[in-house]
Every structure is written in C-alpha cells, then in structure tokens.
C-alpha cells in the first residue's frame, strides 16, 4: 500500500512536469505582431475620440 502511494505521487510529479512543459512550449512560441498592432489601433482609436 505504501509503495503504491509512492508510485502514485511520483506519477503525479511526472504529470505536473509534463503539464508545465506543455504550457512552457506554448509560452515559448513567438507572439504574432497582430496583437501589438491591435493594441496600437485601440490606443489610437481612443486618442482620436
């Protein structure tokens, strides 16, 4: 039983590591320029009001 619990928490650790990696890979992707452009547009639109 004890052993089983150890394995379970090890498995959870591995899952968490892999989850962080999924997220990190998405985080490492280059941000497209369209978002900065969009923010710029929104700022200009508001300034022009």
């Amino acid at each position, binding site marked *: 039983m004890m052993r089983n619990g150890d394995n379970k928490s090890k498995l959870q650790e*591995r899952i968490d590591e892999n989850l962080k990696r999924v997220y990190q890979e998405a985080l490492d992707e280059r941000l497209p320029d369209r978002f900065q452009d969009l923010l710029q547009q929104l700022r200009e639109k508001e300034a022009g009001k």
Partner: protein
Amino acid sequence: MSGGADPRDELPDHLPALRAFAISLCGDVTMADDLVQDTIVKAWTNIDKFAVGTNLRAWLFTILRNTFFSIRRKRKREVADPDGVHAGSISEKPAHDGRLAFADFRRAFMQLSPEHREVLILAGASGFAYEEVAEMTGVAIGTVKSRVNRARARLCDLMGLAEGENPMPGVDAATNGVMSSSRIQAA
C-alpha cells in the same frame, strides 16, 4: 479616467501567458489567436470592470475562457456529437520505453475535455491557487479539486498507465551494454 496608472498599459506583459493558456486550452493556434484577439478587445473596452489592485492576469484568463466556452456551447448546439470524433484514436497504445514520453503525454492531454485541460493548466502548470481557479472558472473549490483529480486519472487512462503504476521503471539502464561486441582484437 483619474491620474492613476491605466491597467491597460500592462496588457502586453500578459499576452504571452494568455496565448499559452489559449493554445493549451483549445489545442489549435489559429483558434487560440482569435481568442486572444477577442480577449484583448473585450479587456480594452471593459477595463472599467477590472478591480484595480486585483490580479489582471487572472481577469484576462477569465475573459478568455468564458469566450472559449461560450463559443463551444454555441457549436455544440450545431454539431451533433463532438466527442465522438476522438473515439477512434483513443485506444492507441504508447510505446513502452519505460518513460512517460512527452509526445504521448501531449497527445493524451489534447484528448481530454477542455474543462479538464483548463483545470490542469490553471492549477498544475500556470501556478494559480485552487481558490483563484475556482473564482476564474465559476465553480466551488471542492469542484476544482475533484476535477483536477478526475483529469489526472483520465490522463493516466489515455496513456495506458494504471494509477499507481511507476511511469519510469529502470530508465534506459540497458543502453550502455550494446557497444562492446564490435571491438576488433589487435593482432
């Protein structure tokens, strides 16, 4: 607007995380980028609803996930059985090389329901507390916790790992023994 700093100036700082959340949530970069775009516009125009001093990132994530799930609800009404699509590919067994191969993990992760992906990314990968996740997703903390547990169990199912099974027994211990046989004896 008063003389205080405009929280909208901080939007760019949160875009990489917001996009990473979107990609992890919907598994599709094109859709993720559309979600981020919608979220930026909504955040910009509704910034008066943001409580200054609270967590801007959590607020942005909330807008994004609400947008995602409302689009999904709309689609669900149009498409008959969206979950049946994956049914054929699920039983594919991972290569048992003794490791929890990342490619297998990623594939399994993307087969989860978006509710499960969401809770695992928020609580497991991007470091929000259960309490924050509960607030962002509009459910009780207990629901968040049990959802995390069910999501983990489902992941194990999809990867063909029984819960409690060691995911990395004797990692690659045998790889070094192969090279000795090809050595040529000197005369």
